[in-house]
């Protein structure tokens, strides 16, 4: 028999938990939901745009009644649960109806705090919390003129803005001299104050309300200083209080909220709680992003998978008032131990403040230009060491020497037909429509539905901006850690660590030890795991071809028509007539339709049928060629210029060194493709400064550069160090590659890896610590012993059958 789960509270946090639970264990529970409001589940955050007339109630529904029916969930709306009998595990509602439970989930939310002042119970004094409040405001706006909002916080300002748009004269009363003092400092508040006054709002700063006066209905407000103001409507938005009465009356331990542990379990092990009603490690919650993370954790435990922990993290805020761009996150005020980076341009109404502690970003306030909010937020959550980017970070991500398409300025201004994703031709309008129509919340969902940012990923920032601006700013749903894929909750870093710690030496063992949710994994995690195994246990691991993408399985690049391309290795890009003649003969023998010189100085033979591959490889092998690995997450090519042997400017033998580097590194598997170049002088004809590892020869030696990229995002290399001899250059190359192989996430190029871990990390491991460098290089050479086997010769001899059909039926 299925267990019974009862959810009290039909709001965003509770229902999100159910959604997550249904994904994990769809048949585990019979589910009943009690909700006080007579609706399905709606997006409470979007009440402000409803009040402002920018959205309708229908548009903000997340789960309509049909959803409950489709998922066999019994929804008891309009019923308030009044008692929980924990001994007999029964809840009773105000209409006398009862429901038994095996597990109980409390998501009772919060309620607005009403100031305990005379007159607060008069007609026309309301809060801003639910659809009924919005209805009251809209009705009042039709017949009355003067509105007063008490509280200049996020909610108060959104209410004030909405009422003003509905045609009322609105005054905002605020107790301090800083608006949104939970999110802003004084300079940002002053800029905003000026702008909101310009829009037509009146502000009474540093005013404390003493009483609300009126006969039946509110007529005016009186302040502590004795002054008065007329009012037909008063909206109190001075804060929220967790709803704990029900839990408390049932004897569940409560403080300010219902106290939960890291698994979202309350004092009673059968009872869980999520959302604004909870208190976790003495913190309570009012924004949506943490609630979603709680939902994830709680559902995991309700499904009895038992592996998730809730760790509260920094949150960010945006204000949903059209025309006001504001972003705030973390510790934006700072203290004696922090340093501030501040930018202020009053004429353009732009203010930015970044708070830094121990070389990490710990807080940010952005006003007027919030394009980089998501980026700063990511830096904060990742705890990135910012010492390298400190000089320029205040100006935003696209000022970091990235000449590719960095985030362009605000997507809000773009027309609907502006192309956001160039790979898949997806326009802004398509994305916005998909977000509202399908109720998408996360980047992954947008990827799945629209394909935007699903290919090369260079438009990810733009798509995130569209998500934020379409859903409202609170939807900064960037998880603090990203799971590898849907098969696990563990991140790449956690999986890599577990492989070593638990000594997991093959994929099936790993999947069972780390409780993979799927039998076989998927096309996303299997290749990653196969690589991690290979790089962690180079001498023991038996490669799993079925966990490799087709290109690496057949050592050739699949093309759009299902044929393949073949690229023989040409060391350092130096060839000769004999080799060229052999390639020409082989191309004719197999009727190769296209022969093309590649960007990496190799020759690409395109349009080869799969069954011809082994024969062609055998012929290439006979002519002395090995695989060029143009298909692999591996060392690709070492590009060179002619150097001192011929060039009148050349300072060193760049071709010779390039060939040595290629002979040393070929055949190695890496997290993503890896490119090397060697230039003979600073004119840099081999373009070494956009390679993963680049060597620029100078008269006195060799300059070593790392982390360059010429692809999606052009990134110039970081200078690593300068050495005097070829031997040293090669040792650094091996050590750097090994560090990357051991530490980067699968499918992470050196450029984003270095940006993630910081150049300092690389320098201290490879440059400053000679012993470590030598050890890294040693490990690289050790793993190369097994790696430098030509796969072409091997497959042509041993695995020919893999390339032909099993049978022909005519």
């Amino acid at each position: 028999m299925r267990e019974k789960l009862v959810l009290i509270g039909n709001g965003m946090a509770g229902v999100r938990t159910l959604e997550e639970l249904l994904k994990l264990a769809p048949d585990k529970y019979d589910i009943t939901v009690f909700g006080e409001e007579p609706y399905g589940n709606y997006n409470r955050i979007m009440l402000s745009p409803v009040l402002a007339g920018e959205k309708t109630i229908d548009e903000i529904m997340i789960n309509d009644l049909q959803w409950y029916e489709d998922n066999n969930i019994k929804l008891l709306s309009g019923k308030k649960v009044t008692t929980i009998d924990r001994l007999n595990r029964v809840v009773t509602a105000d209409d006398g109806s009862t429901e038994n439970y095996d597990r109980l989930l409390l998501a009772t939310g919060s309620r607005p705090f009403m100031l305990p002042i005379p007159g607060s119970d008069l007609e026309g004094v309301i809060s801003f919390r639910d659809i009924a409040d919005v209805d009251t405001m809209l009705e009042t706006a039709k017949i009355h003129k003067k509105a007063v909002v008490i509280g200049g916080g996020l909610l108060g300002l959104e209410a004030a803005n909405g009422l003003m748009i509905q045609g009322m004269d609105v005054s905002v009363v605020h107790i301090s001299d800083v608006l949104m003092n939970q999110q802003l400092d004084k300079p940002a508040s002053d800029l905003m104050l000026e702008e909101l006054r310009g829009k037509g709002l009146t502000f009474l700063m540093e005013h404390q309300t003493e009483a609300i006066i009126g006969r039946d209905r509110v007529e005016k407000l009186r302040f502590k200083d004795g002054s008065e103001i007329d009012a037909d409507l008063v909206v109190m938005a001075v804060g929220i209080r967790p709803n704990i009465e029900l839990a408390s009356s049932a004897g569940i331990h409560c403080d300010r909220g219902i106290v939960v542990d890291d698994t979202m379990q309350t004092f009673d092990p059968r009872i869980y709680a999520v959302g604004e009603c909870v208190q976790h490690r003495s913190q309570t919650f009012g924004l949506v992003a943490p609630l979603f993370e709680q939902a994830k954790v709680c559902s995991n435990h309700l499904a009895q998978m038992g592996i998730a922990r809730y760790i509260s993290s920094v949150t960010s805020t945006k204000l949903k008032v059209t025309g006001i761009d504001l972003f705030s996150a973390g510790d934006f005020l700072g203290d004696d131990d922090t340093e501030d980076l501040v930018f202020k341009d009053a004429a353009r109404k732009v203010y930015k403040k970044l708070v830094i502690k121990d070389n990490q970003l710990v807080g940010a306030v952005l006003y007027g230009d919030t394009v980089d909010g998501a980026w700063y937020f990511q830096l904060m959550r990742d705890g990135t060491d910012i010492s390298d980017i400190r000089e320029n970070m205040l100006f935003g991500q696209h000022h970091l020497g990235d000449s590719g398409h960095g985030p362009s300025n605000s997507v809000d201004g773009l027309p609907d037909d502006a192309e956001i994703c160039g790979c898949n031709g997806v326009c802004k309008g398509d994305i916005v429509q998909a977000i509202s129509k399908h109720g998408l919340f996360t980047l992954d969902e947008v990827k799945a539905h629209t394909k935007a940012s699903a290919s090369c990923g260079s438009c990810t920032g733009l798509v995130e901006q569209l998500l934020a601006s379409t859903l409202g700013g609170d939807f900064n749903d960037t998880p603090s850690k990203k799971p590898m894929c849907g098969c696990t909750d563990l991140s790449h870093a956690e999986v890599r660590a577990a492989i070593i710690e638990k000594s997991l030496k093959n994929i099936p063992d790993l999947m069972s030890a780390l409780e993979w949710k799927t039998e076989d994994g998927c096309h996303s995690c299997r290749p990653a795991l196969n690589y991690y195994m290979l790089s962690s246990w180079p001498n023991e691991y038996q490669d799993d071809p079925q966990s490799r993408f087709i290109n690496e399985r057949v050592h050739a690049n699949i093309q759009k028509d299902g044929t393949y391309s073949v690229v023989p290795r040409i060391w350092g890009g130096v060839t000769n007539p004999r080799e060229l003649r052999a390639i020409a003969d082989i191309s004719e023998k197999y009727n190769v339709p296209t022969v093309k010189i590649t960007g990496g100085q190799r020759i690409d033979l395109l349009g080869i049928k799969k069954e011809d591959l082994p024969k062609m490889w055998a012929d290439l092998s006979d002519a002395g060629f090995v695989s060029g690995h143009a298909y692999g997450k591996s060392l690709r090519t070492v590009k060179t210029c002619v150097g001192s042997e011929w060039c009148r400017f050349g300072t060193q033998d760049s071709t010779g060194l390039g060939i040595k580097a290629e002979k040393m590194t070929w055949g190695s598997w890496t997290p993503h493709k890896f490119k090397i170049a060697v230039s003979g002088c600073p004119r840099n004809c081999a373009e070494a400064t956009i390679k993963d590892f680049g060597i620029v020869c100078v008269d006195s030696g060799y300059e070593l550069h790392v982390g360059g990229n010429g692809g999606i995002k052009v990134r110039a290399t970081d200078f690593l160090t300068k050495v005097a001899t070829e031997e040293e250059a090669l040792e650094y190359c091996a050590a750097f590659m090994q560090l990357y192989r051991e530490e980067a996430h699968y499918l992470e190029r050196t450029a984003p890896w270095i940006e993630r871990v910081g150049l300092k990390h690389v320098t201290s491991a490879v440059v400053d610590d000679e012993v470590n460098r030598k050890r890294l290089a040693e490990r690289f050479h050790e793993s190369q012993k097994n790696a430098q086997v030509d796969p072409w010769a091997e497959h042509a001899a041993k695995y020919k059958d893999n390339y032909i059909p099993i049978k022909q039926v005519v």
Partner: protein
Amino acid sequence: MSWTEVGPLVDIPKKGSRVLVTAEGDVAVFRTSGDQIFALFDQCPHKKGPLSQGIVYDNRVACPLHNWVIDMNSGEATGPDEGCTRTFETKIENGTVFISL
């Protein structure tokens, strides 16, 4: 129903496939980790990618061209993608795979 012999089960790699060439085009014959056999017309409904070359997991295969994931049971694309590829009935008798073309 007429059955055509494909070949021995062991000739198809686990979590892999082999191609059967027919007059109407290639058919991909898959073997899952649990030794189930599925057969699909070897063309992804998206851009005709050869599904036989994809990564196989559970009852699904990911197309090698753009990672559409096809349910091998129904031939339908999964998730928000929409499209369907033809399926064929198969059976295993005494270690030999048969298909109904």
